[in-house]
């Protein structure tokens, strides 16, 4: 049903630490791998070895430059983006078929592919570009929070977390229950000041982003520029320089000194 549950018992989601993400795209690959072999239709690639390849991904990593307003050093920030499992998920209520739903038990937003008509309206309603219509299967794909890993008793305990979290080499991704104020993710968000993406859209995202910590600033004035010691080219090179300048097309009037 596309009616939203009034509350969800748990609020499972991710914390993404923008301070430590190194932009390796490991999470992108792990996600594609797991979700191509498990829940629902595989994530297809179109023209995979051709001139214009494209494919379905549930997680993508952007990279941004941020220039601090106080004139400090610019920062490069890698920015993984996947479904935020919003509490007020517009992608659920717009769906005409009931394929798009939010689970009352843990807040995960999923697509039932046996009902989806591939109309794309849910993707239009998502501010974050988190849903991609699979061009081969014709059904909507989105992050499942690895619902088929986190409760999967066939996997060893340490693997019962989303594939992206499990694979991240820099520990930039954390998984947990935000409804529990004592969970590791809740504490992390409280401590570091978690960010809602596009709060003005009113979606109340569950996934939180931890802002990059401020970078070091130079506390003393930089050393003075080196002074030029030779302004006039001398010896053979000086002669060559003048001779070449004298040729047609050379910089006839300008001396090396003027050029500096």
């Amino acid at each position, binding site marked *: 049903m*596309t009616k939203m549950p009034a509350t969800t018992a748990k609020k499972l989601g991710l914390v993404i630490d923008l301070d430590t993400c190194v932009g390796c795209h490991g999470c992108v690959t792990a996600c594609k791998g797991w979700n191509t072999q498990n829940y629902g239709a595989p994530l297809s690639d179109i023209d995979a070895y051709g001139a*214009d390849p*494209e494919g379905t991904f549930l997680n993508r990593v952007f990279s941004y430059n*941020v220039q601090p307003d106080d004139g400090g050093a610019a920062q490069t920030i890698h920015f993984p983006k996947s479904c935020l499992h919003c509490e007020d998920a517009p992608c659920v*209520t717009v769906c005409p078929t009931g394929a798009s739903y939010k689970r009352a038990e843990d807040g995960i937003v999923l697509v039932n592919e046996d009902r989806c008509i591939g109309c794309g309206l849910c993707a239009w*309603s998502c501010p974050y570009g988190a849903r991609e219509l699979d061009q081969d299967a014709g059904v909507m794909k989105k992050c499942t929070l690895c619902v088929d890993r986190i409760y999967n008793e066939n996997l060893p305990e340490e693997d019962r977390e989303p594939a992206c979290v499990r694979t991240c080499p820099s520990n930039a991704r954390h998984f947990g229950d935000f409804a529990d104020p004592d969970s590791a993710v809740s504490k992390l968000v409280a401590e570091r000041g978690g*960010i809602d*993406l596009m709060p*003005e859209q009113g979606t109340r995202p569950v996934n939180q982003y931890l802002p990059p910590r401020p970078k070091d600033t130079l506390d003393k004035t930089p050393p003075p520029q080196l002074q030029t010691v030779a302004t006039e080219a001398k010896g053979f090179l000086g002669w060559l320089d003048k001779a070449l300048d004298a040729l047609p097309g050379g910089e006839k009037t300008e001396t090396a000194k003027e050029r500096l």
Partner: protein
Amino acid sequence: MHPAPSVIVFTALSGLGFGLFMWLGLGFPGFTGMAAFGSYFIAYAFSVGGLLASTYHLANRKNAIYSFSQWQTSWLSREGILAVVTLLVFAPVAIAQIFFQSDAWNWLGPIGSALALATVFATSMIYTQLKTIPRWNMPLTPVLFLLYAVAGGALLAMQAKVAGVLILILVALQWAAWMMGDRRFADTGTTKGTATGLDRIGTVTTFESAHTARNYILDEMVHIVGRKHSEKLRMISTIFLGVIPVLMLLLLPANMFVAILALVSHLVGVFASRWLFFAEAEHVVGTYYARG
């Protein structure tokens, strides 16, 4: 947004078809027999044709039956149900008028008219509800969809003078919507900074996109081709949509030839403006991709 032919044809044609139904239900032009057949044929052809076109937008049509199930929350579902109910309600009215020259079922007409308008309203709400597309997300959007339907419907119902006046209002409101729409995105305050939450540090620019190839999001929602021609297209649309038909309808004597020419011009204008409706619409997801 990507101006897909299927959704342009769907919204334009079904709007006109249901607009005509609205007039037929109220007893305009009040034909019976073969003439009534003509009117109902056009109304059914436009509305059903439009709805069929919309199914070409679906990537997985085999589940289409489920799309009638979520009327409690989904405008798309409501639109489907209202459309089918409207088409069914008009069936006995049309059959009685065409084959029995009878007005026995005409009492259903006004109910059908209200349903036809409700259908167009539901269509408009599919777009209006999307906060992610600020240009659509304003009260003028449903008003315009309804006016397009009722004005075009009047033209199809051969109510020349009424159509002329309605089209004048339509053009004025369409320009208001274009101009208000131009400011909508900026008014929402969404920037690359709010999209990434990095505005608290400083000015955000793109270093590298997440992917070098195109993808569904870019194809569908980051359509920028054609925006640069929007001024010209607005003028072209205005001329065909409004100026030519209004001059013909209000100044020339009413006859079949004038009506058909006015209608053809109006249709061209409707398609141009509907193309713009999609092509000009900026989706907030574009902020993740924009260079600046």
